[in-house]
């Protein structure tokens, strides 16, 4: 179990981080996914699907349940506030970096936040499909198994997601 955790913790963490947007929540969801793996790991049949596909489908269900839960109980995130230590480190990194100028760094941050906001604005299924394709490098067949829909639906979801993202990001300078 420790080996599986070491191997899949980073991709799962980034998947949850891109879906829900908060580090602490993403870490909690990763742990809950692995606990579910301990509990229901017997139900995995290796002949039908890869283990990573099965793991991502469990993760996708966790994500969906969390989004439904928070949509009924909206929260105000207090932990996202930047505390003094983090602000100091950020200021130091601005001066210390000689390779990337300050303007480029700030621009990159701006672009990242724009991409994040654009992806957050997508519907849940499109967001999941595009994140699994772009950042987890899964094939259409695997994404179809995870989402529980045909491959044709996955193609349409990804195409529509990219259209929406292009529309939202057309004003942002992507030259970096």
């Amino acid at each position, binding site marked *: 179990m420790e080996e599986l955790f070491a191997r899949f913790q980073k991709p799962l963490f980034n998947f949850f981080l891109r879906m829900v947007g908060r580090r602490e929540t993403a870490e909690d969801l990763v742990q809950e996914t692995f*606990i579910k793996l301990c509990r229901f790991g017997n139900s995995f049949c290796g002949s039908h699907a890869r283990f990573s596909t099965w793991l991502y489908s469990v993760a996708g269900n966790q994500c969906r349940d969390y989004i439904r839960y928070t949509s009924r109980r909206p929260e105000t995130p207090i932990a996202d506030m930047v505390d003094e230590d983090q602000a100091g480190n950020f200021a130091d990194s601005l001066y210390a970096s000689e390779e990337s100028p300050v303007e480029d760094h700030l621009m990159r941050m701006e672009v990242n936040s724009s991409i994040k906001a654009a992806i957050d604005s997508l519907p849940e299924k499109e967001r999941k499909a595009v994140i699994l394709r*772009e950042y987890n490098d899964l094939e259409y067949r695997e994404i179809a198994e995870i989402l529980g829909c045909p491959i044709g639906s996955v193609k349409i979801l990804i195409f529509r997601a990219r259209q929406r993202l292009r529309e939202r990001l057309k004003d942002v300078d992507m030259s970096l």
Partner: protein
Amino acid sequence: MSASLDGELTQKEKQVLDTHLSICAECACEYKALSGLRIAMSAWQDEEPSEWMAHRFAYKLREFTSESKAASGRKPRWVFGRAAAGVAAVVMLGLFIYSRTVELQKVPLKILSANRTALLTPGSSAVGLKTVPPTVQSAGAPNSATSSGAPIMTANAKPAGDYTPRTAKPAYKKTIRYAAQGYGRNHRQRRYSRQPVKPVLVAYAPRDNFGTSDLASRHAEQIIMQKMDVARSVEGETNAIVTNHLDEANLKMNETFERVRGTLRVAADLLSSERKISNDMTTGPNGGTIL
């Protein structure tokens, strides 16, 4: 085009697409835009999880394994024992509640007051009416019940033989029984004579248990409901106040973030302008170095 960027097309489909893109400028522009989007999205790089996540997971895993061991180690025979104990407790509780419910008791006609005779009218809350062998009615006593259509029962109906009850409750029971059977209070008469008695209807009146009444319990229920309504309204107000405070805090936080961002931009602009000035000073207007 989207599937082509992801490498999901077959060889034949790719050839068809390439042929079309070479002809159609609009689709070629669209394809270029999509590939640019993919490159831009790759700028959002992965982040590392915190160091504590692995430790927290190890702790949770230990807790989970210890719980599962404890669950598997339980002896199954106690499950049946506990279930049986639960069933027995439920049965006892049901018997206790049944014994505490309203009991029916026969009340003789003589002790019925003006209030209780209301039980005998149709639609009253009397539990039930039962006919018993009638008692001899005194001559001349008005049968008010028949005239009003109510069941045949009056306060003037007398049982066979004169009798007066010694004590309140037990005597009433005995009296009715003897009256129904045609016996007098004098037990010796029972052996020698049995006088016919006219059937009378007797009313069943509920016996109060421990002095409580339906009215008192209804009053208690009303008080409880009022208190629950008050508690609900207080909870609603508290939730509204907390939500308002959270919204204000959120707004202030957003304002602070905007101010910080603005300050950082100004600082960045200042830095870039300072660098430019210092570069100009060292290079000079003609491009040569001054120092």
